[in-house]
């Protein structure tokens, strides 16, 4: 008998702090698998955001820099420009990228920085206790919207992928989900593409990943995966928004 599935080398052999069923763990593993497959662990630098994923530097074996809230794309820009032979990625949640960090992500994408952005959207602020995020869905109950998000006061949920896809500096942009096995496979493919456009010097690459927050959604982890399909996917459609013509398969 041989091993057909095991922990990727780039993923640290530790217990994560994530809640039971939180799909951050799946996304971490996919990033680690892609780093392993591309053989780039020794030259990869991650930039951690603020939020639950702030501790990502404990879980992936590459080098890391921690950025101030929302500023990961700006910090990553500095790293990439001074060390252009490195593979630089940010790992940001929606409270980080779509709220306090909106300026940084828009301008990094617009400049076509050679970065890979892993954007984890779970429609809520996880770490701080489940408050409304810019991505919270209309009518969604959170700690700060006990009657559900009222779009006449709070605006509509922000579709970052669609917004950024209009910028010429963006080379690869996709939205995926990790709520079932087939989607997990697609998510891995998209993450790989987003790293490859950087390695091939084609421009900015980002993957928006619909993720779960069973604790703050108040749902069992399995029900939370179903909620992604029922509530999130209709508003945040999955697919590739921008694909470069000349991305090479390895």
């Amino acid at each position, binding site marked *: 008998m041989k091993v057909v599935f095991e922990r990727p080398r780039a993923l640290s052999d530790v217990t994560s702090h994530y809640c039971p069923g939180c799909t951050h763990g799946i996304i971490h593993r996919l990033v680690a698998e892609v780093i392993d497959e591309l053989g780039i662990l020794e030259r990869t630098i991650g930039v951690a955001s603020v939020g639950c994923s702030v501790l990502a530097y404990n879980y992936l074996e590459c080098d890391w820099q921690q950025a101030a809230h929302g500023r990961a794309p700006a910090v990553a820009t500095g790293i990439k420009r001074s060390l252009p032979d490195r593979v630089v990625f940010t790992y940001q949640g929606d409270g980080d990228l779509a709220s306090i960090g909106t300026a940084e992500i828009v301008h990094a994408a617009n400049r076509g920085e050679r970065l890979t952005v892993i954007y984890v959207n779970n429609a809520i602020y996880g770490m701080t206790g489940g408050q409304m995020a810019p991505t919270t869905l209309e009518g969604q109950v959170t700690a700060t919207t006990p009657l559900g998000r009222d779009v006449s006061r709070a605006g509509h949920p922000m579709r970052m992928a669609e917004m950024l896809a209009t910028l010429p500096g963006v080379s690869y942009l996709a939205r995926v989900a990790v709520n079932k*096995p087939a989607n997990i496979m697609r998510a891995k493919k998209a993450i790989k593409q987003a790293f490859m456009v950087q390695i091939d010097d084609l421009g900015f690459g980002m993957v928006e990943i619909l993720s779960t927050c069973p604790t703050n959604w108040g749902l069992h982890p399995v029900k939370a995966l179903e909620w992604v399909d029922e509530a999130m996917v209709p508003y945040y459609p999955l697919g590739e928004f921008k694909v470069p013509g000349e991305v090479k398969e390895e």
Partner: protein
Amino acid sequence: MARVEFNVDRCKGCELCTAFCPQKIIKLAEGINKMGYHPAAVEEMDKCTGCAICARVCPDCVITVYK
């Protein structure tokens, strides 16, 4: 012949593997692990096909699959 191995003390009992196992052979154990969770376990290992779906949906990389 296939087999899955659980890193029992890493399991948080989220049941994503039990929900997606095509053979429906993964269940939470009665006992608890070091963290206080009921960990996932397989009783009828001979029914395992080694498809690794359980391992792919596990957020905590608890499962190693042999085939």
